[in-house]
Every structure is written in C-alpha cells, then in structure tokens.
C-alpha cells in the first residue's frame, strides 16, 4: 500500500509491525482482548439485526437457543481457527495473504473489502439518521421501503453522512477516543433497552413472553405466522455474521498481539454482549413498540426513544457513528491501495460519499441480515487459503507462502480457488434466491480444497 509521507510518519507511531511479526515485548494478555471485543460488538447495526429476527418470524426459543449455539460456534472459530495461526505467524491478514496470494491479488481482495465496508457503513449512517430525525419529526421509512420516503430523510442522511465522512477523514483519533469512552455506557444502554422493553411488554413468565412474541410476529406479518428462519438459520447467521473476521482470518491482525491463542476466548465477550444480549434487547424493543404503538417498522431511533428516551437517541447516534467511522476509514485505505498516488483524505471522503449514497436507500439497512451473509460469503473464503496453506501445504507437497517464494503478483491457484466458489454462491443467491448464510461454510471449504488442488496441479516451485 502506497503511503504519503505523512501517512508513513503516522504509521511508525500507530501502525507498528505491519510487515514484521509482532515481537514479544508487544504481546498482550487476554484481558485486553476481553475489553476490546465486549465494547466493539455493541454497534449501531445491533439495533437493526435484533428486530429483523422478529420480522423474519423467528420463534423465541429459536432465538434464545440458536443465538447461544451460533455465537458459541463463532467463538470456537476465533479460538481454534484464527487465534492459533495469529499467535504463531504474528502477521496481519494482508501481509500473511500477500505471502500466499501475491500483492496484486491482495489489492483486489482489499477493494472487495472496501466496497462491502461502504455498504455496511451506509447501513450505520441510516441507523444514526433515524435517531437524528426524531427532533425534526421525520417520517421514518417503512420496513419494505427501497427508496427514501421523503426529501427530509434524504437531507438528514446526507447531513449525517457528511459529518461522519468528514470526521473519518480529518479527526479519526478523536472519534476513536470517544468510542472508547462511549463503549461501557452503550452496553448498559442496550441492556437497559431490553429490560425496559420487557417491562413494557407486561409479561411475568416465559410462556407470557412467548405469547406476546408470537402476537408481535403475527401483527408484523399482517395476521400470518410464517418464518423464513428456523433454528439452523439462526445458528448459521450468528456463526457467520462475523465470518470474515474469524474463519476469514481478518482478526489475525488483532490476535497477532496475543500472548497465547487462548485469548481467542475473549471473543465470547463480544458475542454474548453484542450478538446475544444486544440483539435480544433490540428484538424486545420492537415487540414493545408493536404493543404500544402498533408500528412494526424496525427503525432504531424511535424504538430506542420509546424505551429509554433521549439517552436512547444518543445511543443510536453514537453506536452508528462510532462504528461507521472506522469502517469508512478502512474503506478509504482500501481504495487508496487500488489508486496509487491518491491521498488518504480524498479516498476516505470518496468512501464516505459512497456510504452516504447507500444510506439514502433504507433497503440496505432493512436487508442487513442478507447483506451480512453476502459479506461473509465473498470475503471469508480467503481465510481458508491461509488455513490450508498453514496446516496442509507441506503435507501434500506444496510450498507454503508461494507468492513470496516465487515473487508472483497474482497466485492464480488462490485467485480461482476464491472466485469459483464465490461465483457459484452468488449465482445461487441472486439467481436462485437462496439465503446467503447457507453459502459461507461451503464456499470456505471449497476455496481451501480448490487452493490445494490447483496448487498441486500447477506446481509451486516456479513463478506462476
């Protein structure tokens, strides 16, 4: 990645060990990771994901048990797939992948990452805008809305997006500090939202809660009771929601600092706070909203305002803002890598503009469940290449770190091993209309197997 002189000087201070293994003096104990994961998974998108389970007609039992198991599988993936390689190799994902796939291919992967980050940031901007719009009596978009429902909504989204993009471009450090400060407070507001919603539902037993829950689904679906997500789907969603980070190896960059691979257990903090408690709390908020206002639109701002008042609005804005910021910043870095000679600032603003335009269309936020699966399907398979190269290449006679050894810019074995399963998955998702989260694991396994087969067929001793 080409950096401006300013970037280079900054990188010496804040982005150490990008091209070298993390030395022992910089290793951190498990405590640092528990804090980090617990805070960072309580994000703006949690306000969207929880209610979408209710609207998908998921039964209460399937949510409780499905999320419990799915999050456990996610934690195990971090602990036993990502963390062991991270604590042995101690490289970032990009540097590790560069050694196997080649610099040019990593740039393409990086671009895919950047584009998907923009849409994710767009959903976060939409979430924040729904809270900012409350004081202006903004009419919120309906759940099935694809396009914005008013000029006011567009103006507020553009304003929120402009502020977030500008801050990502000019003042990242301040937001980073603010995110640290907001983190424990946000987790407690999420918890408070769930508790207050529970009280507003007026239930005092599991059976009562189940009855109210079923009524809420029935109301949201216009009197019907159909589900598009069973137990398996909830498990797969919870497991692969962060697939790019665990089986996709993005968090090699995080765990390369861990003293031991057992620090991977710290992800349980994030999963069970952010992806269990917060999702359940957000889902209960929608159920309470349906009961009190007969509105089943899962718009985070009004939902949070109903249960905890202005603190809820602040929480939605802060949760969306603090998570959209690093996402836009990272997308900007990805674009900068593809366009050498451009400045980080201009690319961050470009990424912010793309994210803001995406945010104008509420469908990106309301279809977040499917988008998250798509994100994992496209990005996670590259983790299988790292996994196969690390554990299996020597056993079947392939040279590990082939691109580094041969000096090639694009390792075609990796390129086609990645593109084939992703292309097949995208065909089934977009043409056949099959749900995205079924494809993450098959694509991951296929990518790893194809990488080994292609590498073996093509040989790895010469530059390819």
């Amino acid at each position, binding site marked *: *990645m080409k950096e401006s002189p300013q970037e280079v000087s*900054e990188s010496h*201070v*804040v*982005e150490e060990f990008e091209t070298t293994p993390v030395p022992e003096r910089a290793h951190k104990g498990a405590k640092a990771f528990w804090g*980090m*994961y617990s805070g*960072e*998974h309580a*994000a703006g*998108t949690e306000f969207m994901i929880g209610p979408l389970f209710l609207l998908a007609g998921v039964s209460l039992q399937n949510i409780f048990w499905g999320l419990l198991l799915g999050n456990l599988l996610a934690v195990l993936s971090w602990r036993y797939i990502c963390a062991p390689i991270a604590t042995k190799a101690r490289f*970032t*994902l*990009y540097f590790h992948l560069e050694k196997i796939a080649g610099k040019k291919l990593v740039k393409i992967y990086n671009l895919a*990452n*950047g584009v998907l*980050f923009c849409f*994710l940031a767009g959903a976060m901007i939409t979430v924040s805008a729904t809270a900012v719009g409350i004081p202006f009596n903004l009419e919120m978009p309906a759940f099935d809305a694809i396009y914005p429902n008013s000029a006011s909504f567009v103006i507020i989204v553009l304003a929120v997006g402009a502020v977030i993009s500008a801050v990502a471009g000019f003042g*990242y*450090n301040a937001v*980073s*500090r603010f995110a*640290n*400060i*907001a983190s*424990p*407070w946000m987790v*407690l*507001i999420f*918890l*408070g*939202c769930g*508790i*207050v919603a*529970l*009280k507003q539902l007026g239930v005092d037993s599991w059976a009562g809660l189940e009855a109210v829950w079923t009524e809420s689904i029935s109301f949201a679906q216009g009197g019907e009771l159909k589900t598009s997500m069973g137990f398996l789907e909830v498990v797969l969603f919870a497991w692969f*929601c*962060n697939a790019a*980070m665990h089986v996709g190896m*993005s*968090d*090699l*960059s*995080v765990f390369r600092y861990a003293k031991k691979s057992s620090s991977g257990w710290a992800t349980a903090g*994030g999963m069970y706070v952010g*992806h269990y408690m917060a999702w359940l709390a957000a889902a209960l908020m929608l159920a309470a909203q349906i009961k009190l206002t007969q509105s089943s639109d899962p718009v985070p701002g009004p939902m949070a305002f109903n249960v*905890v*008042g*202005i*603190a809820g609005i*602040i929480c939605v804005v802060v949760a969306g803002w603090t*998570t959209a910021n*690093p*996402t836009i*910043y*990272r997308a900007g*870095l*990805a674009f900068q*890598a593809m366009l050498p000679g451009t400045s980080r600032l201009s690319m961050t603003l470009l990424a912010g503009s793309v994210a803001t335009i995406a945010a104008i269309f509420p469908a990106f936020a309301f279809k977040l469940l499917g988008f*998250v699966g798509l994100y994992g399907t496209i990005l996670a398979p590259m983790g299988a290449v790292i996994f196969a190269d690390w554990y299996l290449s020597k056993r079947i006679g392939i040279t590990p770190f082939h691109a580094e050894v041969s000096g090639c810019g694009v390792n075609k074995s990796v390129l086609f091993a990645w593109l084939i399963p992703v292309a097949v998955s995208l065909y089934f998702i977009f043409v056949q209309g099959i749900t995205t989260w079924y494809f993450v694991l098959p694509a991951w396994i296929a990518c790893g197997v194809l990488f080994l087969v292609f590498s073996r067929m093509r040989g790895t001793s010469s530059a390819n």
Partner: protein
Amino acid sequence: MKNICKWIGLLSIVVTFILPFLFLLGQVELEAMKQGLLIATVVWFGTAFFWIGSKESKPTPDGDSIL
C-alpha cells in the same frame, strides 16, 4: 480532579445500570427513569473525558470488528 471525575463517572455508570432494573421492579416511573438515564449519560460523558485515555491506534484495513 482526575480521581473525582473517575468516581463521579463510575457512579453515573452504576446509575445507568440500576435505573432500568428499578423501573422493572416498579420502583421508578418510566419518565423519571428516562430523565435519570439522560442525566447519567451527560455526567458520564462529561467526566469520562478527564480520565479515560485516548486510544492511539488507527484501524488497519482489516482490523477491528464492526458488527
């Protein structure tokens, strides 16, 4: 000063934690709880800046978790 801010901030976080439970148990009204949470929020952000240090790292393209 830093210590005072720290203790006031921690107190506001405890209040943020307890208020919803008090509402659940019927000890406070909804509006009072909402106002209490807002005050605790203002106090938390007003005091935490003085004792919670800055995070110096910028995210790498593949760094922090985001969902």
